[in-house]
């Protein structure tokens, strides 16, 4: 019996030693899903923040203080995310948290941040994170609703009013499907067909055939994520659709064009961020400096292309740094939160952020750019 007691105590003691971090710096906490099913989100996010912290500390930090980064990998598990959030707040005593790659992990971190009064910038999409507005919770990615609005605005400009929708049943697809249906009416769009597919499905021909056989459909919209939209794109090409295809921001990456095939993807449109067309931005573009600096640094350090998701983390970090600089007090979470809420016109890779007490997302539709795939590459069309 004795041996077990001592072992247990020793384990707790070991925890204490490991957790004892250095003080007198700006303590920033991060919990992202760097491994597990959401690693495609969390991996670029973790890499981005590690890189940016290193860069900032080399340049002398904020007001002369270096940033001490504590980064945990929650593996996409909301339960772990909550434990790490508690650890960041109680044990590591951070003054701000960035993280929550998925909606589930964000919701877990969010309640800890709210309870303890620590500013938290989420990297997940759901609108429920910032609506209703919570005092200490902000987020950088645009919502699914904004993507729908951007797409519908473009459809309106093309004179399209009747569409067919085919959505994935994964978290992303299902959430965007619901949001699009909600705002379609406001844009005079009528959804005549509403089909779904499972995330693992290998062929969407039956659903697409039903859409094609629906009278009056003028365009197809595919809210989805991962391989599904690539298969939809190929099936649409095989079936010889003559109406335009719209994809979501969920597939805004070069990998998508490769997966779907440049021929099949030719002419399809989707809302994306400036990061995707970094090499084509005009030099007088407001985001030119931010986007090119980030993409070049990331490429040089990791030999990988940047993704939209890494961009969310980049913007969250920029927002925190900006807020701490303006707050002038790196010890007081409340002051940092207040400064964060007063953010006005901060240019990030995703868009230009201006927070207010009523708006903790701070982006508008101009953050999205309507992109078209042309000759296997992205082309900005608005």
């Amino acid at each position, binding site marked *: *019996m004795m*041996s*077990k*007691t001592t072992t*247990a*105590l020793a*384990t*707790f*003691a*070991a*925890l*204490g030693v*490991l*957790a004892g971090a250095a003080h007198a710096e700006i303590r920033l906490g991060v919990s992202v899903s*760097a*491994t597990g099913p959401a690693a495609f989100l969390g991996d670029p996010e973790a890499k981005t923040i590690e890189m940016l912290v290193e860069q900032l500390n080399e340049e002398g930090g904020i007001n002369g203080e270096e940033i001490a980064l504590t980064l*945990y*990998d929650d593996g*996409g*598990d*909301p*339960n*772990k995310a*909550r*434990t*790490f959030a*508690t*650890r960041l*707040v*109680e*044990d590591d005593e951070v003054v701000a948290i960035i993280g929550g790659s*998925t*909606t*589930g992990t964000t*919701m*877990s971190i969010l*309640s800890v941040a709210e*309870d303890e009064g620590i500013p938290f910038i989420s990297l997940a999409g*759901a609108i429920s994170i910032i609506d209703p507005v919570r005092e200490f919770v902000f987020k950088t990615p645009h919502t699914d609703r904004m993507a729908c609005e951007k797409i519908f605005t473009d459809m309106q400009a093309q004179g399209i009013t009747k569409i067919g929708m085919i959505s994935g*049943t*994964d*978290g992303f697809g*299902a*959430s965007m499907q619901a949001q699009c249906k909600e705002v379609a009416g406001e844009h005079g769009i009528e959804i005549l067909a509403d089909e779904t597919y499972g995330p693992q499905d290998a062929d969407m021909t039956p659903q697409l055939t039903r859409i094609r056989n629906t009278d009056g459909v003028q365009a197809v919209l595919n809210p989805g994520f991962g391989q599904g939209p690539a298969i939809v794109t190929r099936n649409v090409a095989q079936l010889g659709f003559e109406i335009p295809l719209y994809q979501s921001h969920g597939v805004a990456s070069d990998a998508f064009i490769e997966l779907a095939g440049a021929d099949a993807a030719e002419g399809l449109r989707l809302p994306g961020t400036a990061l995707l067309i970094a090499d084509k931005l005009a030099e007088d573009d407001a985001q030119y400096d931010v986007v090119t600096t980030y993409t070049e640094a990331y490429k040089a350090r990791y030999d990988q292309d940047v993704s939209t998701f890494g961009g969310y983390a980049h913007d969250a970090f920029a927002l925190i740094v900006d807020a701490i600089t303006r707050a002038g007090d790196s010890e007081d979470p409340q002051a940092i939160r207040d400064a964060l809420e007063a953010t006005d016109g901060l240019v990030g890779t995703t868009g230009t952020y201006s927070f207010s007490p009523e708006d903790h997302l701070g982006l508008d539709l101009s953050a999205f750019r309507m992109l078209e795939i042309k000759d296997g590459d992205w082309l900005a069309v608005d």
Partner: protein
Amino acid sequence: MAGRNKWISLGVLALLIALLPLFFPSGYYYRVGALIFVNALSVVGLVILIGYAGQISLGHAGFAGIGAYACALAPEHLGLHPALAVLLGAVVSGVMAALIGKPILRLKGYYLAVATLGFGILVSMVLTNERALTGGPDGMNVADLGLRDLLRDMGWRLSGGEFWYMICGVVLLIGAWLALNLFDSPSGRAMRALHGSEVAAATVGVDVPRQKLRAFVISAVYASVAGSLLALQNGYITPDVAGFMHSVEMVTMAVLGGVGSVLGATFGAAILTLLPQVLTVFAEYEQLVLGLVMVLVMIFLPQGLLPSIARRLRGRGE
């Protein structure tokens, strides 16, 4: 002898739960402690099923999912108090276990493992796909228990971590007490008898299917209550709680700590809950260390950590 062992086990557990907070440097350790207790509770349930009755289940996360979502859904849709929702979840899990246990407990070994696995995956799929009800893969909010506010009004201020540490600790003690009582009861003896040999047990008059089902239902209720406690303390729940990996994790905890022993199960739960927290510094090697520990325990301490160590100590004493 067995009676004395029971009180020693309970006493050790109670002392650990009561005294460990004296060594906690920050509130975060209460959270880890509460998680250990929740995991230990579902593993104690598995000790009854695997350790006593000798049956396997790879689908117990399904019952944890039912318990968790009962706490999320019942207050919202039925207007039930969260505490009653815990009970409702336990009843639903118990009934569900009785219904599916009847046919599938006729299976043995691998076949039983696969059948229970199928059940777990079904629950997880329903929770993921019934978006309108469960919020889908994004999960849903869980109403607050309200007890902490009540205590605060009575002048007893507790942080969330302290509160859940106490609640989960007390529930684990009750769970362990019931499991230890069962061990020496007629049912417990019957379960252990059929574990040794079903034919022999049946020959001496043990109703084998009935005792198997009893163990299955009891362990399902344990998992369900553990799922409820997790949902209530997190305030948010996603279908991950019912995921296959969670089932595997439970069985791993039970086997690592010692599947025949309630204290051992708690020990196993403690180690597997603590490791990822201790290993954050070398997160890339976490799975490696975990796997290595498992392989070494299975080779050198096949009875599980605690029983093997206890036997070795006793052997030296005599």
